[in-house]
């Protein structure tokens, strides 16, 4: 059977010690049995390693940060599309999703398909409103509050016991044992990601995660649970293993079914000693460890592309339990001319 030729644009090429999901997503679609893909990388920084991984990415374009405004970003995408004829665009950063979701109609007019959560789905799963999400969908969540000022810290300390988790609205989380630490972490995160800061009750247990894909009609197209086996000082999984955990999959199916989730997602949960599960975060995109799902038998990146193209995708329920991923670092050697091209022309 001949493969269908398509062009996919993807962000998240920062395959660093705090990796974006771009490269693992691209590895997944490159392994597709149905698509012959041309990959267009979209990069924010000129040292994102994926830019220089030519065996995975055919061409990379720099794009402006979402903070520059959606018009600027969309104009740039328009230019790239005039050269590349993009079939599917897959944003991989939380911070850019809003802009791409808002612009999905404009992108569609350009012939670019996306498969993203709706604005309502995106908003209601925010860390700052997780307690409301838990209540609405009958999912256990730890107590948490979004705060905008240090003056609110004493009130929270009366409400919850130490330790507390201090979290940014998009990224970063620290465990604080004193009010001074809450204050330090709050300022550190706010300087990077802005306000509010989320103060969350600390639930003791083992962190377990699920990568999943919802079809937007309440069906789970695929889901693979994982436990981190090795965690970096940034809290990122450097190794992990797929789990046989039907309860975790039941919770995933319940969330996808009740929210009619559209697109990729990562559920972060804590399993307590008593076997209770607490949802601590929903990331509205495929995570950086998504290639584990491919290795375990569920090519979720390929399925996401098919959904974006409006194709029917049969749900995948099987995966190999006990499949491990282990990350490694690797030095790419590049000629300065490549860096020069990207820096001066914004393309490589």
């Amino acid at each position, binding site marked *: 059977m001949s493969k269908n030729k398509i062009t996919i644009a993807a962000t998240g090429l920062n395959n660093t010690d705090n990796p974006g999901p771009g490269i693992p997503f691209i590895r997944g679609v490159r392994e597709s049995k149905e698509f012959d893909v041309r990959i267009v990388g979209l990069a924010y920084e000129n040292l994102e390693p994926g830019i220089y991984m030519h065996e995975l990415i055919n061409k990379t374009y720099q794009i402006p940060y979402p903070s520059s405004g959606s018009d600027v970003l969309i104009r740039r995408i328009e230019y790239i599309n005039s050269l590349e004829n993009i079939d599917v665009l897959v944003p991989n950063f939380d911070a850019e999703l809003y802009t791409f979701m808002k612009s999905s109609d404009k992108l569609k007019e350009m012939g670019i398909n996306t498969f993203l959560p709706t604005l309502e789905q995106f908003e209601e799963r925010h860390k700052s409103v997780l307690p409301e999400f838990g209540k609405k969908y009958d999912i256990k969540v730890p107590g948490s509050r979004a705060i905008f000022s240090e003056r609110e810290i004493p009130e929270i300390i009366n409400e919850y016991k130490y330790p507390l988790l201090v979290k940014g609205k998009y990224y970063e989380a620290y465990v604080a044992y004193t009010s001074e630490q809450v204050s330090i972490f709050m300022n550190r995160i706010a300087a990077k990601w802005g306000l509010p800061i989320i103060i969350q009750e600390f639930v003791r247990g*083992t962190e377990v995660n699920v990568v999943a894909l919802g079809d937007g009609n309440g069906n789970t197209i695929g889901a693979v649970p*994982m436990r981190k*086996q090795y965690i970096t000082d940034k809290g990122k999984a450097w190794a*992990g293993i*797929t*789990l046989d*955990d039907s309860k975790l999959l039941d919770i995933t199916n319940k969330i996808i079914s009740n929210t009619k989730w559209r697109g990729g997602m990562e559920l972060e949960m804590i399993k307590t000693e008593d076997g209770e599960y607490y949802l601590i975060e929903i990331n509205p995109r495929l995570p950086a460890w998504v290639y584990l799902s491919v290795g375990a038998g569920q090519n979720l990146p390929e399925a996401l592309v098919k959904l974006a193209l409006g194709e029917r995708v049969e749900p995948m329920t099987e995966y190999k339990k*006990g499949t491990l991923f282990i990350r490694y670092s690797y030095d790419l050697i590049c000629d300065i001319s490549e860096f020069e091209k990207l820096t001066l022309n914004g393309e490589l």
Partner: protein
Amino acid sequence: MKINKKIAVSESGFVFDSSTGDSFSVNPIGIEIIEMIRDNKNEDEIKRELLDKYDVSVPVLEKSLSEFIGSLRNAKILED
């Protein structure tokens, strides 16, 4: 005593709990004991079988067996 259904034990003594991702290693006698528990043998029956097979005193066996079963419980390899 019951071995957790999610536990897989390889011939080399690698014990893997697919529900938690935890893994352990046990020696050949450990594998034998796990197999005996799987065959629904109780602690007394396991003790008698090991005493018949190995040159070991009763106090040493009792202490070691009890410690081993305690470890299996702590690791949630044993369900009850």
